[in-house]
């Protein structure tokens, strides 16, 4: 049983966090932080007052059943959704829909590829590269493609790629602009073991101490592999959050189901 005390999502419990917050002088500005983050869709409350604080180098995996609001939370962190309440800061800068500077610091990988099926892999990357204002595309694009093992298929249309290869292309798009915050939404979905191991390889290379990763998944094994922090989201809230090191692999599955059923640890 993980030894960290169960954590409720309310501002007063910020002090209980193991990672330092911005209220303690002398500490680094958190790479990603959120306070009281909520999102309502009409009358459906998808995200309910979530607090978050991650330092550079952290890898947070968020587990949770379908409908827990994980994708909505990720969309809020990506600035894709406007929060109903609460705020998000990326390296101390507030996420506001109008401002675009912070978007160049965030890379998003979803189970959708965010690619145009009728353009080639390279054309897609060049397009997004220009949207991100990157100038050195001639050397950056081949480098990224090589990293995911797609350099030889750069002029294949995305339509012609298998799902696994498409995900790799999507990954290269997500990392093209060298984001310091990487958000992954169920990235392992539909990947065969080989594709999954390629993904795992690239993701572990992201743990370079300066990048922050948030991954959402419902696959417990894959989620725990690279995580430094773990959270379980149930019905819009974090039922439990803590350090990966405190998680006992053998009992985690039972623990997870317990949290999901009860709404908290």
């Amino acid at each position, binding site marked *: 049983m993980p030894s960290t005390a169960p954590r409720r999502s309310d501002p007063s419990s910020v002090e209980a966090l193991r990672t330092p917050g911005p209220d303690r002088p002398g500490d680094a500005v958190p790479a990603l932080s959120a306070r009281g983050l909520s999102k309502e*869709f009409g009358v459906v*409350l998808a995200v309910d007052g979530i607090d978050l604080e991650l330092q550079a180098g952290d890898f947070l995996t968020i587990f949770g059943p379908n409908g827990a609001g994980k994708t909505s939370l990720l969309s809020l962190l990506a600035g894709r959704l406007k929060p109903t309440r609460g705020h998000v800061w990326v390296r101390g800068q507030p996420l506001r829909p109008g401002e675009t500077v912070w978007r160049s610091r965030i890379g998003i990988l979803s189970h959708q590829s965010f690619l145009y099926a009728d353009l080639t892999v390279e054309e897609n990357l060049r397009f997004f590269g220009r949207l991100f204002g990157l100038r050195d595309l001639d050397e950056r694009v081949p480098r990224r493609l090589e990293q995911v093992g797609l350099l030889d298929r750069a002029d294949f249309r995305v339509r012609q790629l298998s799902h696994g290869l498409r995900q790799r292309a999507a990954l290269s798009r997500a990392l093209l602009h060298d984001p310091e915050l990487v958000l992954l939404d169920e990235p392992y979905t539909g990947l065969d073991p080989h594709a999954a191991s390629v993904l795992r390889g690239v993701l572990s290379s992201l743990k370079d101490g300066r990048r922050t990763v948030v991954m959402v998944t419902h696959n417990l094994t894959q989620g725990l592999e690279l995580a430094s922090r773990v959270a379980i989201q149930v019905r819009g809230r974090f039922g439990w959050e803590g350090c990966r090191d405190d998680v006992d692999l053998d009992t985690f599955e039972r623990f997870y189901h317990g949290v999901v059923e009860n709404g908290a640890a």
Partner: protein
Amino acid sequence: MPSKRLQTTGTVLAVLGALGTVALHWMVFFWTPTEATMGVIQRIFYIHVPSAWVAFFAFGVVALCSAVYLWLGDERLDQAASSAAEGGMVFTTIVLLTGPLWGRIAWGTYWTWEPRLTLTLLLWFIYLGYFLVRASTDNPERGKRFSAVVGIAGALDIPLIHLSVVWFRSLHPTPVVMKPEGPTLHPDMLVTLMVGLLSFTLLFLGLFLHRYTLAAATHLVAVRERRAQA
């Protein structure tokens, strides 16, 4: 909770408006003089013109509330816009029913592309778009934003539409020229018209306030229901 005061104000205004409308009808049928050229049918003018005034005034409210709603995101502004749109559409329909009726009896044709009536017809369709877009969007928040965009784009285009339609009409005058005001407006006619304008405006405002408080209350109920379930 929308204040009780709003509801009471709404009732007061609606009652005043209703009374005014009754008075208007009395004046229309018994008091106001008959217009020389068009005869008795011209009396429909006192319903037609005030309705048109309210129809466009309401749309102005819709556009203004929509613009501020997009800017501030306050739910109440959208409730105000949609409430005004409902009232506005009703009065627009009245204009479109009284206009052709007048035309048919006065000049033998239902529709003559008279510029202001044409503009009102287009306004009716803009209102229709406003409601259709809200109704056919799955995500209600997006639906509200969509209808706000319809309202704002419509309001900005209406002056241009009016200019173009008037210009078009000046090129192709139909044999019958419909001048709603008539050649001159007798002081008694003016009084009747003013009574009409005032009563319809009060009636609209009263209905608007009631509709708004209803929309606000409905929203609160839904929010509380959802919180009770959680």
